[in-house]
């Protein structure tokens, strides 16, 4: 059998499944919105409001996660100490926790009977509860994003040439200057890649907001409500098609910018 024919036959099943169960449904989604669905998004202020709060939460998630993961990642990539691998295992354990479970963990942390509430009352203060708000959602998204971001950044940091840092130090650079001029530029592609994944995930994620069961009007919650409770199929379809195109574009752009590092 000629090579080309065999290649075509081998890849055909995967392509057929992709076409039938992804591209065709996406096509249905694109047209189901109709003119009414798309114009409703532009004219009704609550859809624009939810778009803005979704983008704000996603941006804040990305910024906070990148700062935390860079600090922890650079630390773990550059030092060796007893217990390091245990710490790394703990930090990456939540790697594939579903968003809905992460939502519950946020309730365990900052809910009505959460750890923060218990500690704050034990210290004689007010009962601090913030799980069921945008802050709780943000906390959940950061929780969700740290393990993956950390792994990406550590992989990049471990590939940095340690001689660059030594050279900078011997030339009299302060730790901050080394961070700014050597380390951060070195891991910049990984920062772009990991940041894009954070942003796209936080934009499209749904389970966490659902588990927190509050009136957090982020876009996926609005889509779900329009679809199930309002039976407003046109708006739900239009919103989710735009959401899908947007997250895909963010990831594609980041992959171009980072030279293929973004998944």
């Amino acid at each position, binding site marked *: *059998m000629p090579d080309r024919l065999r*290649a075509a036959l*081998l*890849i055909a*099943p*995967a*392509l057929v499944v*992709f076409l039938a*169960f*992804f591209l*065709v*449904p*996406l096509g*249905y*989604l694109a047209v189901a919105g109709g003119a009414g669905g798309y114009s409703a998004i532009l004219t009704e202020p609550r859809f624009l409001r939810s778009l803005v709060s979704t983008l704000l939460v996603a941006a804040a998630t990305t910024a906070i996660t990148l700062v935390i993961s860079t*600090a*922890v990642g650079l630390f773990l990539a550059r*030092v060796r*100490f007893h217990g390091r691998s245990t*710490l790394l*295992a*703990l*930090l990456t*354990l*939540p*790697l*594939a926790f*579903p968003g*809905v*479970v992460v*939502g*519950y*963990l946020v*309730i*365990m*942390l900052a809910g009505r009977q*959460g*750890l923060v509430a218990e500690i704050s009352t034990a210290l004689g203060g007010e009962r601090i509860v913030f799980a069921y708000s945008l802050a709780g959602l943000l906390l959940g998204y950061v*929780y969700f994003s*740290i393990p993956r971001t950390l792994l990406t950044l550590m992989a990049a940091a471990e590939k940095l040439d340690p001689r660059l840092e030594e050279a900078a130090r011997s030339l009299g650079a302060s730790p901050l200057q080394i961070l700014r001029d050597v380390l951060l530029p070195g891991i910049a592609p990984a920062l772009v890649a990991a940041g894009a994944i954070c942003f796209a995930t936080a934009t*499209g*994620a*749904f*389970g966490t907001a*659902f*588990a927190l069961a509050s009136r957090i009007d982020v876009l996926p919650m609005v*889509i*779900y409500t329009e*679809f199930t409770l309002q039976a407003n199929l046109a708006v*739900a*379809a239009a919103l*989710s*098609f735009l*959401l*899908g195109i947007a*997250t*895909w574009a963010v*990831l*594609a752009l980041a992959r171009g910018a980072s030279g293929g590092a973004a*998944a």
Partner: protein
Amino acid sequence: MKRGIGFWSGLAFTLLISAFLILPVLASVIAGVTANQFIGLSSGLTLRWVLDVWADYGGTVLLSLQIALATLMVTLLLGIPAAYVLARHAGITARLVEEALVMPVAVPGLATALGLILAYGTLGDLRASWFFILIGHVIFCLPFMVRAVLAVLLALDLRSLEEAAQACGATWGQRFLGVVLPNIRGGILAGSLMVVTLSLGEFNMTLLLHTPFTRTLPVGLADAYTALRTEMASAYTLIFFTLIVPLLSVMQWVANRADREGSGR
């Protein structure tokens, strides 16, 4: 070796972040086995809540396992041949196909699920069957299988291996089964663990795709979080953790081993 202030502050911050990630997990596990939530651990440990949850929601666990295994089978059959072709062909067509196959990861599950319902929701009994959820999981998980296998294939000198086998008179089937597959075991294992883990935890699509008769574990969890008392919700979460944490641990172990082998070369 003397450690400076930088080391200790870095360690303190890393410990703080680890605590942020692990403490809620511990709190949830403890709440799931504590006899009386309001008295605390001193009220004793019990498996009562776990058994209660199992009686009501055991079916969701079994369905999720069934769907995860079926998803694994389908992604193996579709993904390995696809990755092989993508690794052997360097042209623009192959790159476009690769780009297309990984696209479902970049689109939120909610959107994909809504599209599936619009396109096939009225097709026979499909909507009411667990196959509908399987379709969604396959679309979402296939990119992870393709990528895991492709990464290992690209690290091999596949062409030379196959040419050597061919020079010895091996047919394509013998080459694929006897040379290619054994060399990509690591990638297949990594991809399989990822697929099972993701399928077991998939919620974004499944919430829309499921029916009252096809409730999966994460869908049941979401239901428990809004409707049940803390100890029951925690016990349910504990059941989920006992499935998922061993998978994640093996995944870490496989990845570490691959790293060591890679750097040992």
